């Protein structure tokens, strides 16, 4: 029962909905710091574009069509990138885009000119894309990916003002909770996919019976519930939401009331056909919802922060939606979807109003604010309308869905069980009380001096609030014609064949839910009055009873013990001593393969390549060099370096001997450059002189340790010897080598298979490698910029001060121009163009004969290097302009563009193409595009080598300058003392 992947030849409308915000996010990030207006137009343009697309799809939606768009993601794993829009997704898309547009407009005025707006709008747009991705995903795994992206963007937005500790803490907390929930969700989705055999949403939704009867049903449900409940801030994970209020208010309004926190309940509604209808569903989802709804509403009354109050109220309303989903009857689902929309409308406007008040008065403290209706009459009216909707006052949208909620609680309890209804009425009372608390700031007198004298905000900053409050009214008065069609779409898409008859009307006649509403309304007013005047609400710093169940505290404690446990482990098991770490590593290197390896099944011996005494002879030298380097490295660094170089040369010779000319060339050039590099570094190491006393002073422990290391070294060497020999005498199994050998010339257009491998077959690897090279070069450069030599090696070395050394009298360039280096100077300068030609030659022939970008780059670098060695940095830089950074950038760009070029012809990244040119003098020339790629490699290698060596060479100049300055400084006081 596989739903086929739709053809993706049509216009990718859904994909554009998801990806346009991400692209805009990148553009937004690259705008200048103060481009508030441009950022606004960009973000608003994205939202408007999305709205146009969404609205143009309305005809399809109203026919009940399910739109599907997709392309391959991991087809081998049965994963497709699938976007799917039905009525429910459409309604949520609209919600995300409309509120997004209003928030963007609001944020244009809210953000201060000092805030770095590109970051803000960039994150906001990325969030918009992620949220649309969640809503439109037709594949569950893909949904989780977007889900985690919303957590990530939420984290970034909460931490937007990262200089504030509360923002950092809130961001961390929100991310830890929601991202952990996201991981649970992923696990749950995988279980679901395991049960159904597909991650395709359509298939999963159609397999409800199968899922509910499976043994793994409870596991899947629990994991998915954990994801949804953490995201929607449900008890006991609700604590992160109030801390997320450290975000700028547009973010709170958008993410933390209207959209992101709705992702959890959206998911539950989405999966309702697949998962709901069991007692487990009702208990887990409904139970969490009831606790959340009561706790949130109760704590909200005792908040002193405007946004804190709204945050707890959001928690409570999300709880209400969760309870409805937990009840799970079709009518309850209608109420849940309806309340999601209503809550988004009034809560977003309330947050924006709170932001305006904060913006205008400079405080959000309910104890300070009062009497604002005189200064902010319009904002006050709007906020009062929205809070009335929140409280569930008739003729406003909040009232309608709350009525439906009351009706459902009555229904679920039947005639005898009233506890659900009691909880609902209590929640209703609490919400009336906190709504009154919220609007109390507009009446009475301010309790204290306000930080700022408030004025009405700019016209367009208030507009979103006006529009939303107006919507509350329209929906509240004429629901059937305003929200009715939209709601019908969502309900029909999510409930399918279970779609109930329902009647959206303001007046249902005198019935029990209405009585409950009236009780809640008057009970709430009484409760507020009692708390206000009897219990001194303004003075209470924490909510009674519930303040002990502090989720945030539990979270912090858990985090701290985790850190402590990690520290303990590191203390017990770790060591900061490098030698011990390496010792462990080497021991493991010996022991683990010995444990794993068995003897190979048969000992077929290959016909050996014979024994060549000359080859044995050169390795006698190579081995001797290696061992003596090990012996000398402590006291005779230069000797050791020369000896290691000897081993390197022998290695290069071996490559040449054993049919690998490319390797031999590369090894030889790298050897040269490495040696020069290390020589430049030697100067900064402390002097170490071998002495008999030192040897004598070595304790017994030292000798034991050395003996152990020696044993380890010998054992390691033996293991490697045996291993190498064992491999070499066995025939190779079938490899992919044959493919490369057979196709290099026909497919890659070159006869040097190694080079074709590097620049064509495995060019992507090479691309990565040159990127690494460039990064390393930049790291070396950056580290050297901060380099401070040790005091005892800052001065000019002893040798250079000795009268015997001409360096004490002449600069390097004088030596090369007229001094004792005159002859080599002339000789090497003449050599430079020749070496350039050689580099070009090796580069050109690389595709067919040994050579190529790597080798040529190194040869060219060495050509420049010898000039430096001979005449010194000052002279070379006065005569040749080298810009290593540009070589790097140019090379990477060239390689990348060549790769991208194949896209233009509809081939995958880095597909090589061979062009045949007819040139007048040179005749027919065949130029594969890999050639251009290789040119990029060449440039990067030159740039890397130059950048590192030049940066290192300049340290001596810098240090000399500094040393002479210090000497001058030291001389100054002495001179002035002498004058005295």
């Amino acid at each position, binding site marked *: 029962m596989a739903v086929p992947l739709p053809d993706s030849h049509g216009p990718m409308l859904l994909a554009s909905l998801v990806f346009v915000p991400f692209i805009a996010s990148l553009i937004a990030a690259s705008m200048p710091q103060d481009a508030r207006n441009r950022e606004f137009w960009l973000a608003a343009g994205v939202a408007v574009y999305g709205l146009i697309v969404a609205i143009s799809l309305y005809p399809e939606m109203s026919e009940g069509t399910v739109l599907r768009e997709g392309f391959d993601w991991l087809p081998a794993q049965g994963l497709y990138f699938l976007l799917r829009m039905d009525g429910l997704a459409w309604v949520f898309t609209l919600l995300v885009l409309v509120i997004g547009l209003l928030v963007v407009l609001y944020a244009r005025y809210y953000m201060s000119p000092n805030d770095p707006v590109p970051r803000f709008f960039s994150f906001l747009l990325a969030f918009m894309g992620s949220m649309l991705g969640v809503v439109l995903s037709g594949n569950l795994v893909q949904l989780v990916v977007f889900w985690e992206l919303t957590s990530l963007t939420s984290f970034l937005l909460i931490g937007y003002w990262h200089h504030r500790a509360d923002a950092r803490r809130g961001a961390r907390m929100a991310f830890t909770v929601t991202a952990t929930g996201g991981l649970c969700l992923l696990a749950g989705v995988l279980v679901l996919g395991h049960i159904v055999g597909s991650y395709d949403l359509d298939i999963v939704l159609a397999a409800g019976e199968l899922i509910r009867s499976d043994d793994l049903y409870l596991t899947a449900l629990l994991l998915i519930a954990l994801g949804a409940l953490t995201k929607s801030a449900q008890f006991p994970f609700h604590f992160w939401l109030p801390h997320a209020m450290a975000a700028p208010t547009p973010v709170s309004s958008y993410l933390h009331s209207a959209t992101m926190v709705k992702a959890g309940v959206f998911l539950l509604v989405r999966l309702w056909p697949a998962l709901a209808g069991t007692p487990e569903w009702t208990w887990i989802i409904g139970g969490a919802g009831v606790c959340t709804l009561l706790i949130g509403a109760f704590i909200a009354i005792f908040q002193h922060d405007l946004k804190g109050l709204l945050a707890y109220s959001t928690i409570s309303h999300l709880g209400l939606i969760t309870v409805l989903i937990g009840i799970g009857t079709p009518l309850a689902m209608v109420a849940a979807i309806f309340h999601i929309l209503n809550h988004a409308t009034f809560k977003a406007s309330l947050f924006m109003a709170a932001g305006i008040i904060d913006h205008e008065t400079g405080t959000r403290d309910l104890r300070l604010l009062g009497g604002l209706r005189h200064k902010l009459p319009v904002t006050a009216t709007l906020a009062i309308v929205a809070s009335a909707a929140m409280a569930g006052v008739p003729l406003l949208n909040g009232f309608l869905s709350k009525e439906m909620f009351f009706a459902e609680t009555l229904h679920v309890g039947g005639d005898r069980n009233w506890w659900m209804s009691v909880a609902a009425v209590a929640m209703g009372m609490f919400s009336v009380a906190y709504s009154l608390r919220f609007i109390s700031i507009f009446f009475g007198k301010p309790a204290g001096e306000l930080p700022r004298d408030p004025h009405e905000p700019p016209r367009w900053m208030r507009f979103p609030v006006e529009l939303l409050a107006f919507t509350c009214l329209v929906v509240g008065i004429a629901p059937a014609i305003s929200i009715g069609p939209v709601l019908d779409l969502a309900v029909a898409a999510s409930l399918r064949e279970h779609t109930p008859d329902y009647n959206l009307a303001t007046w249902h006649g005198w019935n029990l839910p209405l009585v409950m509403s009236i009780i809640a309304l008057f009970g709430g007013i009484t409760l507020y009055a009692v708390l206000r005047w009897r219990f001194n609400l303004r003075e209470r710093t924490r909510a009674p009873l519930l303040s002990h169940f502090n989720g945030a505290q539990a979270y912090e404690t858990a985090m701290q013990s985790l850190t402590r446990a990690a520290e303990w482990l590191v203390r017990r098991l770790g060591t900061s001593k490098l030698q011990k770490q390496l010792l462990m590593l080497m021991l493991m290197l010996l022991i683990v393969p010995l444990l794993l390896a068995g003897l190979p099944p048969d000992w077929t011996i290959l016909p050996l390549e014979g024994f060549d005494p000359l080859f044995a002879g050169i390795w006698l030298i190579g081995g001797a060099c290696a061992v003596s380097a090990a012996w000398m490295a402590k006291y005779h660094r230069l000797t050791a370096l020369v000896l290691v170089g000897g081993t390197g040369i022998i290695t290069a010779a071996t490559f040449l001997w054993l049919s690998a000319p490319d390797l031999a060339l590369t090894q030889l050039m790298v050897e040269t450059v490495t040696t020069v590099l290390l020589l430049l570094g030697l100067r900064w190491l402390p002097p170490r002189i071998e002495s008999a006393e030192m040897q004598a002073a070595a304790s017994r422990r030292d000798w034991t340790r050395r003996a152990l290391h020696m044993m*380890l070294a010998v054992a390691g060497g033996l293991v490697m010897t045996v291993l190498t020999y064992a491999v070499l005498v066995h025939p190779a199994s079938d490899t992919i080598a044959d493919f490369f050998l057979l196709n290099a010339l026909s497919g890659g257009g070159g006869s040097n298979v190694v080079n074709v491998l590097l620049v064509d077959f495995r060019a992507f690897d090479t691309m990565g490698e040159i990127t690494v090279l460039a990064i390393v070069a930049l790291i070396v450069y950056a580290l050297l910029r901060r380099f401070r030599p040790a005091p005892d090696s800052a001065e000019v070395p002893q040798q250079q001060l000795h009268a015997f050394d001409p360096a004490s009298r002449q600069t390097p360039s004088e030596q090369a121009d007229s001094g004792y280096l005159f002859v080599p100077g002339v000789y090497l300068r003449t050599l430079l163009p020749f070496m350039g030609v050689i580099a070009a030659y090796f580069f050109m022939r690389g595709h067919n004969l040994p050579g190529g970008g790597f080798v040529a780059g190194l040869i060219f670098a060495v050509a420049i290097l010898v000039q430096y060695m001979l005449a010194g940095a000052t002279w070379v830089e006065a005569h040749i302009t080298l810009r290593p950074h540009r070589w790097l950038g140019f090379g990477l760009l060239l390689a990348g563009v060549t790769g991208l070029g194949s896209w233009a012809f509809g081939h995958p990244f880095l597909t090589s193409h061979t062009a045949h040119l007819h040139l007048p003098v040179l005749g027919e020339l065949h130029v594969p595009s890999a050639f251009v790629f290789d040119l990029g490699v060449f440039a990067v290698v030159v740039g890397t080598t130059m950048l*590192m060596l030049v940066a290192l060479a300049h340290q001596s100049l810098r240090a000399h300058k500094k040393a002479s300055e210090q000497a001058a400084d030291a001389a100054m006081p002495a001179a002035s003392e002498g004058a005295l």
Partner: protein
Amino acid sequence: MEIVIALAVGVMFGSGIWLILRPRTFQLITGLLLMSYAVNIFIFAMGRLSVDRPPITLSPDIDPAQFADPLPQALVLTAIVIGFATTALYLVIMIGARGLTGSDHVDGKEPRE
């Protein structure tokens, strides 16, 4: 031939182990250099040894068995160049640490004895 290569890898690797267990930074770098030679030859040898059969195919109709395995060669070529870059990085860290701590001990401070 095979025994010589095997011994060469062993000797270089053993010297490398000895050196990277030493306390001074320069010894460590030398050890890493020797080890990288050993490992490069080891990987290269995975394609087995062949004399006078470089993987240069001058005509399209060839017998692949008559050529050395080009794959380990390409891998080792990249390894050599990356090895150069990492050596440069170690070197800069080595002299940077020496400048910062005043000591060339691998732990950044002289051992207490």
